């Protein structure tokens, strides 16, 4: 099946089996291996990318369903210098083995956008009030990203610092 993916600003024309997930298209066909395959069932968040402006699990979507979509992967977040969010992950030791990190960072980026749009979360006291980045809000909103090294304190601090600085 013919599929066009616009990844990190570049268009790619692919001819894929309908079964190819967005994750496998990125990793195996476009050789963008920054995005990681963890559980491959949408439970760990290692495969998180931004598609059409929203963070999603790329393992639970088919490439063919994203024909023409704009996709951002971790490779698209910086050129020579790290982005503020990436630098904060380094500064706060938001990783140990690093396998979940690209997914954490893409998820955090999408999540910060959701915060700025005023989306409430499960832990927000009211549905209509302003949402402020707090440790509790970030933990809830990042619950779709697991870190088996359990670097959550550093991950949370890095995201909180980025949210407060923006």
């Amino acid at each position: 099946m013919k599929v066009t993916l616009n990844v990190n600003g570049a268009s790619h024309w692919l001819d894929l089996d309908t079964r190819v997930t967005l994750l496998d298209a990125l990793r195996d066909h476009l050789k963008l291996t920054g995005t990681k395959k963890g559980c491959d069932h949408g439970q760990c968040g290692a495969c998180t990318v931004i598609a059409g402006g929203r963070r999603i699990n790329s393992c639970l979507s088919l490439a063919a369903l994203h024909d023409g979509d704009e996709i951002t992967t971790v490779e698209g977040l910086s050129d020579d210098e790290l982005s503020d969010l990436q630098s904060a992950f380094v500064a706060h030791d938001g990783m140990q083995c690093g396998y979940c990190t690209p997914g954490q960072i893409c998820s955090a980026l999408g999540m910060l956008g959701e915060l700025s749009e005023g989306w409430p979360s499960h832990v927000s006291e009211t549905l209509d009030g302003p949402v402020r980045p707090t440790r509790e809000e970030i933990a809830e909103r990042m619950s779709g990203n697991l870190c088996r090294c359990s670097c959550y304190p550093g991950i949370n601090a890095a995201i909180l610092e980025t949210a407060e600085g923006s």
Partner: protein
Amino acid sequence: MRPFDLTRPEELSAACRDTNGENAAFIAGGTNLIDLMKLEVETPGHLTDISRLGLDGIETDAQGLRIGATVTNSDLAADTRVREGWPVLSRALLAGASGQLRNKATTGGNLLQRTRCPYFYDTDTACNKRAPGSGCAALKGEQRNHAILGTSDHCIALHPSDMAVAMRALDASVELCDAEGESRRVGLEKFYRLPGKTPERETHLRPGELITAVHLPKAGGDRQVYRKVRDRASYAFALVSVAAVLRMKGGRIAHAALAFGGLGTQPWRDPEVDALLEGETPSQALFDKAGEVLMRDAVVHEGTAFKVPLGKRVLTAVLKEVTA
């Protein structure tokens, strides 16, 4: 994953025609279907992509709200009209899944998501829902995320949705469209089937029929609460959840609509519970009675016996909060 064809029709009628065959399925968000296809629990030979049919709008009408079938769970939860007029729905959506999944999962797909019974997912075990007539491994297996209401000797699989629980308390109905272009409306209370001897048939959808929208009437109560109890604080299915939509008048309960997750083979609502509460003054004795009525036909197994006391306690806590 088994091979399949995929079409991306641009019109609704074409989408329904493409999906008229037995081995065909609609796909929008795909967060549950693709997972099940990877495990070969679902093996459709044809998928019809309905994500670009323009079914992603939310409109206000004279009756209430019309939610397009492919509106994502995120967009629905964040919609200001929903947050103001149907807050129990926002709360239920935000209590479910993860941020990434809510960004992809759709309204229609959420209603039609399959159970998370581990034996349904494990193709090496018996499951009457997955392989009719093969038996039910859950009956003598590990039980926890299983139903105690509406079960049968053939299946104790739980309906996992949070969203649908809130929608039942809100008297939602689904709008359906078939390959001939015929459309019909079905109340959510008549949409799902009990498992009985055919747990593989979960709804009254006809072949090729597509959910095009969900209709929410104006809420029958201004007091709305969704409480979810689960094994971890976030990103877990409900052990028990309660959606409550209430209106108080002169110290009495004028309108009560209670719906339950984590307990039933379908998003559960019991008219006798609502009837018991209406017209009454809130009291612990009343809440206890409501719990007894809710659980009167519960069928428990070793692993699910905890849900009777837990369900009663969560119901009491919610009723206290919503009538205070």
